[in-house]
């Protein structure tokens, strides 16, 4: 399916708004993870604004597609799209990481739209697998999307889940890998090399799709392609830029887990106007 230039522009605009919310949220919270939130923003914005079947007014709708953010530290992104699509009022975003907030530092079920808590890396693909198996048992046609980080897939649990998902032919399951090339301690290829990544997923029985994770057309096409694949799960391996959209955050590992200060927040928001 081809999207018009206007549709693409609209998605880009929405993604930019999401990026602004992320920066504002983190600036106010004074802690949190901007880098990986910004790198996955285009992937997740497209998913929520134009791919997933969901109803923000009825988060428990049984036919809804499921989304799980396995790399839970990037929840500012999740919270931003949930607020933007109407799961909860936007002013809640300014309570991020505060005592008693529905928006915990790592996501949990207090936030409408969050189905399962996350934050401990490596477990989310299994969670998504469980949702996928539940659909099979109930003969429901919803799809399950799971966002993973690249550093995260160094966890063995991910590969246990990968093996099981192809064993159980979970073609309703679509993994999204935010391949920004950085983890807390540095570049993934220096800390613990992930390559050859596509070969690894294919060896585990997955349909793997390489894309540029900031190209809306490619992102849309990848989700479409994944829907068509039968008999096995799909993974979208998206090359991304950590901190994407804010010049001084791009590919700067320090912004993995450090929120922008007041001055940086203002600069970032100006860039995102």
């Amino acid at each position, binding site marked *: 399916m081809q999207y018009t230039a206007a549709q693409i522009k609209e998605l880009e605009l929405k993604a930019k708004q999401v990026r602004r919310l992320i920066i504002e949220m983190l600036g106010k919270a004074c802690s949190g993870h901007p880098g990986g939130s910004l790198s996955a923003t285009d992937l997740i914005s497209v998913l929520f604004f134009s791919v997933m079947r969901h109803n923000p007014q009825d988060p428990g709708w049984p036919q809804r597609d*499921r989304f*799980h953010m396995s790399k839970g530290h990037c929840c500012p992104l999740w919270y931003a799209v949930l607020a933007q699509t109407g799961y909860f009022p936007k002013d809640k975003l300014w309570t991020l990481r505060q005592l008693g907030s529905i928006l915990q530092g790592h996501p*949990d*079920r207090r936030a409408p739209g969050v*189905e*399962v*808590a996350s*934050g*401990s890396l490596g*477990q*989310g693909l*299994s*969670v*998504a*697998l*469980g*949702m*996928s*198996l*539940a*659909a099979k*048992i*109930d003969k429901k046609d919803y799809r399950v999307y799971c966002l993973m980080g690249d550093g995260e897939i160094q966890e*063995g*649990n991910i590969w*246990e*889940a990968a*093996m*099981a998902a192809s*064993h*159980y032919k979970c073609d309703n399951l679509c993994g999204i890998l935010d391949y920004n090339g950085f983890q807390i301690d540095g570049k993934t290829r220096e800390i613990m090399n992930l390559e050859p990544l596509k070969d690894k997923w294919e060896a585990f029985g997955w349909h793997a799709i390489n894309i540029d994770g900031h190209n809306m057309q490619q992102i849309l096409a990848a989700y479409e392609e994944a829907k068509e694949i039968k008999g096995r799960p799909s993974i979208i391996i998206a090359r991304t830029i950590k901190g994407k959209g804010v010049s001084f955050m791009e590919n700067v590992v320090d912004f993995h887990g450090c929120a922008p200060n007041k001055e940086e927040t203002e600069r970032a928001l100006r860039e995102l106007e």
Partner: protein
Amino acid sequence: MTEMLYQRDVYGNTLVELGKQNKDLVVLDADLSSSTRTRLFAKEFPERFFNFGVAEQNMMATSVGLASCGKIVFVSSFAIFATGRAWEQIRNGVAYNNFNIKIVASHAGITVGPDGSSHQALEDISLMRVIPNMNIIVPCDGPQTRQAVLAAAETPGPFYIRLGRVKYATIENKGEFKIGKAQVLVEGNDLAIIACGMMVSEAQSAVKILLAQGVKARLINMHTIKPLDRDCVLEAARETKGIVVCEEHTVIGGLASSIDEVVSEHFPTKVMRIGVRDRFGQSGEPQDLLKEYNLTSKDIEKAALAIIA
């Protein structure tokens, strides 16, 4: 003739019984379905049984996804792997979300026998007890296993049910089974013996020997470790000279520690602990291991006499 049953046989049959009544019941195992007897369920309901191979972490985290979609998930393996290997998946996934997941693990305790230390879970109760939201049941015999599994299935939230490998003697006249309500099997006011699992049977023998010496011990089956029946513990503390706690488990963090915590805060009294004293297990026949680790009725008797001395 005392009835002898494998708790895991009872577990497998109870799962089948539940599976017929509730289509939302799903069972997971990690390559041990022939030992845990979840295979019985797998044969009846293949579409609701998933074997994950030797991958307990994935099994546990997958149960979380299933439960989020409204399933009641029974997850089984050996106790050491279920609670040890997958501990963090239990903490952050099963318990934090407070989901309807029932971890039923067999092969707990020293009586696993010849397989030796790697397979003898002596820490599982402690590991589960420190996690908020977790309920813990250690059934004392076959019939109680069925009651525990049925009760867990109809009670929302996460459960850990601890089962053994060997056949357990059925304890007669236990009375009603209710989660969190201890069963007083024998009345007595000289001292109290609080036991769980197979140690209830050892304790029962000790009570008989003590009675022959004129010592009246109260025998309590503390099948639910969490939530603990504090009233029953405090009654025992107030009305007797002291408590002997018996568990086929390390004395650190399990039933004995639970009792210690309650009495030390509300009614300090002497507590003697029958359990594994900070040691790993080893290979051997179950009966020999019980002797080696001082877990026999003789050991319980000695501790009881020390209390009333």
